[in-house]
């Protein structure tokens, strides 16, 4: 009889191989989650290549056995550690026998054979294009629906839920003022600093004031204000509507005969359109205020700086900035709402739609801004 092989003080076994390869494996001790991994490896090594033709596993002397132990007994019982041999497990109590019956090689093989479908490159391109076209179609339909509802609200102002408009106005507008002011103030300051150095070489440092006025009014004012709106409030719109969709609140509205666009979105888009010019004016002022200390530091008197800024600006510049801000505001509010409505199912859906709202908004702001720049250049 071979000596008893002790792997862990908690589990022991005796293997006796008789003539003709008939073997008995007697297990003792605690075969549990802690002892099984070691016992598994050791038994596999010990049993393989011993020329065993019939294996009887005597489990009746085990003091305890949990699911991990049962998995080992099952593996021994299928004969996978003693290829070619017949094996059986004896001595288990009825409870453990019942549990042992729930193990299945077929289930394991089915799991191993399961191969998630990997689409080919062409399928993937096709699916993405299809999804993109579908999204484009949804966007066009959505813009149409929102515009129609805005026109209706213009003629029937009583149908508009003004309380909601004001709530959005406060949240997305008044509460956003400090951060918009701080950021554009710093941007104005940076522009003034950066422009002062090259202009100094030309002896034209006073033109920093013109540059500041023009960039803030025509470009950075509206762009910064609407990017801030997208990051701060557009994402909130998408998350709010997405959560409402997940909670079936949007379905509830539809079955009451209320259109989610009419009930929830028109207010947000209107607020976005009215709000962004206000934020933009604020952004322009704080940007200019950010640059003025730099100019004062360069030795120009305040009166001169202000006159220079005024001389460099015309009303058409302001009109251009304001017009852009209206368009950007409409884009941010409606795209964010659309992304919210498009929220899918599952725990990541709301996060995804929030991300998509910010990315789409910023992309569209920059794209529209580029189109504006090209158009105004061509018209001059």
């Amino acid at each position, binding site marked *: 009889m071979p000596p008893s092989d002790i792997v862990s003080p908690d589990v022991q076994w005796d293997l006796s191989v008789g003539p003709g390869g008939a073997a008995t494996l007697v297990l003792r001790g605690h075969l549990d989650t802690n002892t099984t*991994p070691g016992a598994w490896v050791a038994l596999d090594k010990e049993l393989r290549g011993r020329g065993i033709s019939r294996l009887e596993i005597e489990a009746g002397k085990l003091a305890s056995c*949990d*699911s*991990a132990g049962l998995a080992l007994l099952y593996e021994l019982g299928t004969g996978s550690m003693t290829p070619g041999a017949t094996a059986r497990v004896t001595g288990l109590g009825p*409870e453990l026998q019942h549990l042992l019956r*729930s*193990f299945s090689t077929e289930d*394991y093989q089915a799991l191993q054979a399961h191969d998630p479908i990997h689409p080919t490159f062409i399928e993937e391109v096709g699916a993405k294009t299809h999804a993109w076209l579908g999204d484009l179609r949804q966007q066009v339909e959505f813009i149409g629906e929102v515009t129609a509802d805005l026109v209706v609200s213009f003629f029937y102002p009583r149908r508009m839920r003004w309380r909601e408009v004001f709530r959005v106005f406060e949240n997305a507008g008044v509460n956003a003022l400090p951060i918009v002011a701080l950021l554009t103030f710093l941007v104005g300051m940076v522009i003034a600093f950066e422009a002062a150095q090259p202009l100094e070489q030309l002896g034209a440092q006073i033109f920093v004031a013109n540059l500041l006025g023009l960039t803030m009014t025509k470009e950075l004012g509206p762009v910064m204000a609407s990017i801030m709106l997208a990051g701060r409030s557009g994402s909130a719109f998408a998350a709010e509507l997405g959560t409402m969709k997940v909670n079936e609140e949007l379905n509830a509205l539809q079955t009451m005969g209320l259109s989610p666009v009419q009930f929830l979105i028109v207010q947000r888009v209107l607020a976005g359109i009215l709000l962004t010019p206000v934020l933009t004016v604020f952004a322009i002022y704080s940007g200019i205020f950010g640059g003025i200390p730099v100019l004062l530091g360069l030795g120009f008197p305040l009166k001169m700086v202000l006159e220079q800024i005024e001389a460099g600006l015309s009303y058409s510049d302001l009109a251009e900035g304001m017009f852009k801000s209206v368009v950007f505001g409409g884009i941010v509010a409606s795209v964010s709402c659309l992304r919210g409505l498009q929220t899918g199912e599952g725990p990541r859906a709301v996060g995804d739609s929030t991300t998509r709202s910010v990315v789409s908004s910023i992309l569209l702001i920059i794209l529209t801004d580029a189109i504006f720049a090209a158009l105004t250049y061509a018209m001059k």
Partner: protein
Amino acid sequence: MSDDPAHLIVARDLTIGYGNRIVLDRVNFTVRRGEVFTILGASGSGKSTLLKHLIGLYRPVSGEVLISGENLVEADGADRLRILRKFGVLYQGAALFGSMNTVENVRLPLDEFTELSEVAKDLIALSKLRLVGLESAATRMPADLSGGMQKRAGIARAIVLDPCILFLDEPSAGLDPITSADLDALIKELAHGLGMTFVVVTHELASIFTIADRAIVLDPHTRSIVAEGPPAYLREHATQPWVRQFLNRQTS
């Protein structure tokens, strides 16, 4: 009392609540080893809140909960982990992780807490899925499973580390009568076949009389336990009329 090994869970002078609101005031009860213990009560009586205190998610206002004589809320590090390993929990919404398929959900505790080989972990997870009748749904995502299947997968995950206690929060809520009866049969099988102890929060009358060995009834007005005993006995003999009404499904 708590030194008796037959008393698996002991709640002693337990007061629970949110902020200033007391939900249950100095309640005492004991869950015995191997029984199916149900917590009953009207909606809003604090059943689920009590369950969350039993499993140590919330800290009680005063009093203590002992699991095999140990206080989970006070324990930390390795002690806490050791006590947590004694029980599994099925949450109301099953709480399967949406980013993993069913068998990965069930395997997760094995992956995190054992040194077993991949084969062993797969075999164990699949055996638990077979035990709850979900072997054919192993590779499906939780979102593609029906409510009843999600709950069964949740039970498979809860029992994968062989806990001695299983806490179930409204296991039959939102299920059709047949699925609900299947789930009751599974609970009975696990309780009587494997000797597991169950603590079940429910107000499904059919379930209560099928599975429960003993029940406590919570009263939101007195914030106390108004009845304790086998449900069939309480239905006829509870001192409080509304407990009899509750268990006989009569209108007030």
